[in-house]
């Protein structure tokens, strides 16, 4: 297996192509433009489609159409663009369509800034559009994981017939690291694997309909019930977190994505200072790795949630722990990246509080 030095955004794009993504529909926005640029260069060489849409709204609706026809396809954007795509994501969830959406988060709200952020956690895990629905959310923390989770997102989206999101941030997108791709060849996925696809019935079956309109309330309720039963299965089968030095940890830091890397450095420093610190890093944000977080905090006296936001994942951490352990928060926002030393100071503070 060849090791390549690549930017996170490029590794993600290459991994998507190898996972059999045939069509990419995008619209320029910082800081994810490398994904589009990479796709524009590579897709025509491998018989795929790259199309720059007239807007984020058009791009997600092209994904909707393409996914309806059973073709593996994706789009990528950054925070304000994801807000525009949210209507389309709701339609895809309501029509049970698989696809992958990448959000390389930047600071908000509004036009916000272009520096890294994690302030779209709520949007991704709670309300990416109107209506009762969930999407799969994966949070990579390294360039290698950008590649690995991309392929997995496509597989899981197809398996559960629901949209999947890679929730990254500007830091991960722009950084360069060595990456090894799991597959050398481009995988092929045929639409015949999807009997529900609207790709022409060929006079061999009744017509397929992709739709999210149900005017009978009872029918819509029944479909929502069915979908949420499926979500329960997903929750059982798909939850993942990395546990780092948590076995004997008094203080457990909870962080995801690029912040988890900084938190890991802070945990190491705390250990050097004689503080029993550990880290739990959710890899799946929806479903949230409840069991893993509980396991990581088994012996913890205090939990510190660190995010590049005003505190969003902290809600899920508290819920996972049933509020039995105090959960403190440290965050920077608007595009400011927390420093490992600052996280270490927070760990130290909690440790001292605990000693009192």
């Amino acid at each position, binding site marked *: 297996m060849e090791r390549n030095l690549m930017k996170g955004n490029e590794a993600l794009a290459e991994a998507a192509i190898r996972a059999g993504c045939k069509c990419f529909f995008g619209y320029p926005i910082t800081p994810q433009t490398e994904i589009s640029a990479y796709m524009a260069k590579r897709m025509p060489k491998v018989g795929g489609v790259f199309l720059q*849409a007239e807007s984020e709204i058009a791009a997600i609706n092209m994904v*909707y*159409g393409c996914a*309806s026809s059973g073709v593996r*396809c994706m789009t990528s954007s950054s925070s304000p663009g994801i807000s525009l795509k949210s209507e389309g994501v709701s339609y895809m969830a309501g029509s049970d369509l698989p696809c992958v959406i990448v959000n390389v988060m930047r600071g908000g709200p509004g036009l916000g800034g272009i520096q890294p952020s994690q302030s779209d956690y709520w949007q991704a895990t709670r309300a990416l559009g109107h209506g009762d629905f969930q999407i799969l959310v994966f949070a990579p923390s390294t360039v290698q994981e950008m590649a690995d989770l991309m392929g997995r997102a496509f597989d899981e989206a197809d398996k559960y017939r629901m949209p999947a999101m890679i929730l990254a941030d500007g830091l991960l997108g722009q950084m360069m690291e060595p990456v090894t791709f799991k597959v050398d060849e481009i995988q092929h996925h045929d639409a015949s694997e999807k009997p529900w696809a609207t790709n*022409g019935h060929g006079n061999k079956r009744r*017509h397929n309909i992709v739709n999210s309109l149900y005017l009978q309330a009872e029918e819509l309720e029944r479909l929502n019930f069915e979908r949420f039963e499926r979500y329960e299965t997903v929750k059982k089968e798909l939850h993942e977190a990395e546990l780092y030095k948590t076995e004997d940890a008094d203080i457990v830091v909870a962080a995801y994505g690029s912040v988890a890397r900084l938190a890991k450095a802070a945990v190491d420093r705390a250990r050097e200072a004689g503080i029993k610190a550990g880290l739990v890093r959710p890899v799946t944000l929806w479903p949230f790795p409840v069991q893993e977080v509980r396991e990581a905090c088994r012996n913890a006296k205090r939990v510190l949630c660190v995010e590049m936001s005003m505190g969003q994942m902290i809600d899920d951490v508290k819920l996972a722990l049933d509020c039995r352990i105090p959960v403190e928060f440290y965050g920077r926002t608007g595009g400011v990246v927390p420093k490992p030393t600052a996280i270490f100071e927070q760990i130290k503070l909690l440790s001292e509080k605990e000693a009192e």
Partner: protein
Amino acid sequence: MPEFKKPNALTDVPFHYCPGCTHGIVHRLVAEVIDEMGIEGETIGVCPVGCSVMAYDYFSCDMIEAAHGRAPAVATGVKRGNPDKFVFTYQGDGDLAAIGTAETVHAATRGENITVIFINNTTYGMTGGQMAPTTLPGQVTQTTPYGRNPDVEGFPVRVCEMVSTLSGVALAERVTVTDPANIRKAKAAIRKGFEFQKNKQGFSLIEVLSTCPTNWGLSPVEAIKWLKDNMVPYYPLGVFKEGAIR
């Protein structure tokens, strides 16, 4: 002379449209063209939001229901992933010329190999007869109770004229379905659109001047007359652009 009956490309589901609504005629014409070209198994239709929102139940080919205004983008996604299949959208004036203007114009200018059937009846029928982008000056609707005043609400959009300026367009033609002669012309235009698509020769848009008797407050027969007297002078029938782009 052969029997005249419902085309195979329509299902047995009865249309929900109001009496005399010309949606039903246009549905049948599209289905007849699909039958005659023998392409039902290779065709994917995209429905809009509006009165024809449930057209997915009426056509026997594979169907997709799009968000309001997004049908040309959805059709683009299907077509790019399946370049050898036939893809058409069926959209009303609010869907195509208000909320979906950007999707329409850009699918057209890209020369997307899709066929757009555009129903212009100067009104938002499904929501109860509000002003549409194609409502005529002076026309009374629920949201222009004193008549559309261009000083306040602006002027109607002439879609065929607008898209005919774009290089990606192979066909922009305005037809109507007020009488058998015009119905035949409308069908010929739809056929042309699908032929351009078959030969991958560019974007085709067929605008069909249609009636909305219910929201116009007229009988179906009076509505046909109103269309001829008021809409045709403002929206002249004919070919605005025709010719392969590639």
